[in-house]
């Protein structure tokens, strides 16, 4: 059973212009997104830059104004109460940012950084707070004396782990991870990913994992949605997406990922050209005349694809 539903989420930015600075057009950054979150699952959101995946994440947590649509959290509509200090939603949904460096206040000690959500939401005495901070540092595998240091004294991977410690401080239900590893080196990335999986098992967390790296997403996510121009083009379980991609855009993304087997190089290049040719030839099947993708259609219980139904009938 899902604890949170997102219905028809839209985030539009007005473009102003003309003599009176009136709204002349809209940017449809997120345009009708539906999602459901279940406990202990990881949801991947994949797309190229500008596809609206980060905006979706920010809109869910409340850093971005929602134009229309609703967010239902545990049966309650929280669409306009997302940033209220007293609301449970604000405590239970946390975020990990892409650039750990700029998401940590350089003038605060690690202790104060991690304690911030605790001080906001939980009424703990100093001793309890101290104990909780030590616990959190232990969870993210850092020594206790780290709490008296400043962010600049840590490496990139460690900073990202401090960010994670802050996010899990109040036992959240859902963590929105916006490209948490794309600024990290390979071996550090592995560390952070392993660690995210560990705490997920331990606390039954759900993740909304936003990334452009399909390899990482495959490793982490149970359920994946591919985004293009603010809309989902395909959504389904991991197996659905990777083994049976239906939409040309998904196929294109998958064929573009470099593989670490040099032997298959030429073969993959051919495949890529094939997909590209089909992409050029079959545009109308997948995009309408404005270049927008169609509404999602169910092709199996778990797998939804945005295709033109009329075209599909003729196939």
């Amino acid at each position: 059973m899902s604890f949170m539903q997102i219905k028809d989420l839209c985030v539009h930015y007005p473009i102003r212009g003309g003599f009176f600075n009136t709204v002349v057009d809209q940017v449809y950054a997120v345009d009708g997104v539906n999602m459901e979150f279940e406990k202990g699952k990881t949801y991947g959101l994949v797309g190229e830059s500008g596809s609206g995946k980060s905006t979706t994440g920010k809109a869910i947590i409340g850093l971005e104004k929602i134009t229309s649509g609703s967010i239902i959290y545990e049966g309650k509509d929280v669409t306009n109460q997302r940033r209220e200090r007293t609301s449970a939603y604000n405590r239970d949904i946390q975020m990990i940012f892409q650039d750990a460096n700029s998401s940590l206040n350089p003038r605060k000690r690690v202790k104060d950084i991690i304690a911030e959500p605790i001080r906001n939401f939980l009424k703990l005495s100093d001793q309890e707070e101290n104990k909780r901070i030590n616990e959190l540092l232990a969870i993210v595998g850092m020594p206790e004396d780290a709490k008296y240091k400043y962010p600049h004294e840590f490496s990139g991977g460690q900073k990202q782990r401090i960010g994670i410690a802050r996010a899990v401080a109040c036992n959240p239900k859902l963590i929105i991870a916006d490209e948490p590893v794309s600024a990290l080196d390979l071996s550090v990335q592995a560390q952070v990913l392993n660690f995210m999986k560990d705490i997920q098992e331990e606390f039954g967390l759900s993740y909304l994992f936003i990334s452009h790296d399909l390899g990482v997403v495959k490793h982490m996510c149970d359920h994946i949605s591919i985004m293009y121009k603010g809309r989902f083009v395909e959504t389904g379980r991991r197996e659905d997406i990777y083994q049976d991609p239906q939409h040309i855009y998904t196929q294109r993304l998958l064929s573009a990922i470099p593989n670490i087997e040099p032997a298959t190089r030429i073969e993959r290049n051919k495949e890529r050209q094939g997909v590209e040719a089909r992409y050029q030839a079959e545009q109308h099947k997948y995009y309408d005349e404005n270049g927008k993708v169609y509404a999602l259609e169910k092709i199996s219980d778990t797998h939804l694809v945005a295709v033109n139904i009329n075209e599909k009938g003729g196939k």
Partner: protein
Amino acid sequence: MANIENLLTIKNLHTSFRIKDTYYDAVENISINLNKNEILAIVGESGCGKSTLATSIVGLHDPINTKITGEILYKDLNLAAISESKFNDVRGNDIGMIFQDPLSALNPLVRIGEQISESLVYHTKFTKEQRKERVIELLNQVGIPNPERVVRQFPHQLSGGMRQRVMIAIAIACKPAIIVADEPTTALDVTIQAQILDLLKELQAETKSGIILITHDLGVVAEIADRVAVMYAGQVIEEAPVEELFNNPKHPYTRSLLNSIPQMNSENEKLQVIQGLVPSLKNLPREGCRFSSRVPWLDANTHEVNPVLHEVSPGHFVRCTCWKHFDFESAEGGN
């Protein structure tokens, strides 16, 4: 291939930076050569010295705080020792460079056409019309639609992929024999990355130039490189032809790196983690195996005192002897 023609030879190159009156080697004793018609990839994590190596080849280091010793031999010139004015003849003409972030590498106030023809002004005797023609030709070559319009545009009017194509056009404007590409696709989306990589490969096949590709992405390496050098802490620790490296990696670092990639076709396993951290430039151990602190469970006498590159099979070099004792089971035990 029978006629391997050597293009660039680097011999015992040291590039060191000054930190408070002491010079620290960021690139230590690197010897490597680039052949004609070859893509040589240099891989490593941040801070391993791969970009320092690239900028040393192109001579873009701050001369006051940097010391370069050793030899970078191109034709009959030693690029590490020639004067700046002489270097100006080589840079852009014989060696082109592609930078990571095209937006900050392009001048935002200068039109695309002018930026591309800049190196033509310096290095060729083309007339204005000829230059214009060549610019259009270049833009066509790198696959930019409607080049007549693009020459009059500014960088901010182009998308990231288009900007990177413009960068490539600038780099190949004078038909250089060597192209140094420093993370050319890191700032791009995967689909654009695939296009740019295909483009680089095509151009290389056409012009038979040599490309030095600096990257941290092993996927990119597997996709287009011919030969790979893996760097760790300022040294080359493994060098091999691309298939050999991916199918038969030897050095513990290379093997751990390959195992830490979340793979498309592997299932939910734990990713391999390398213990510890890359030591910073100031704290680098200058003796012994650089990687020893990351594999602490290996006995000290499995490392060489002064690790050198050993040829384990034709063209495949590995530094130190510790790889013979490294396996992932013992790594697990050590964790």
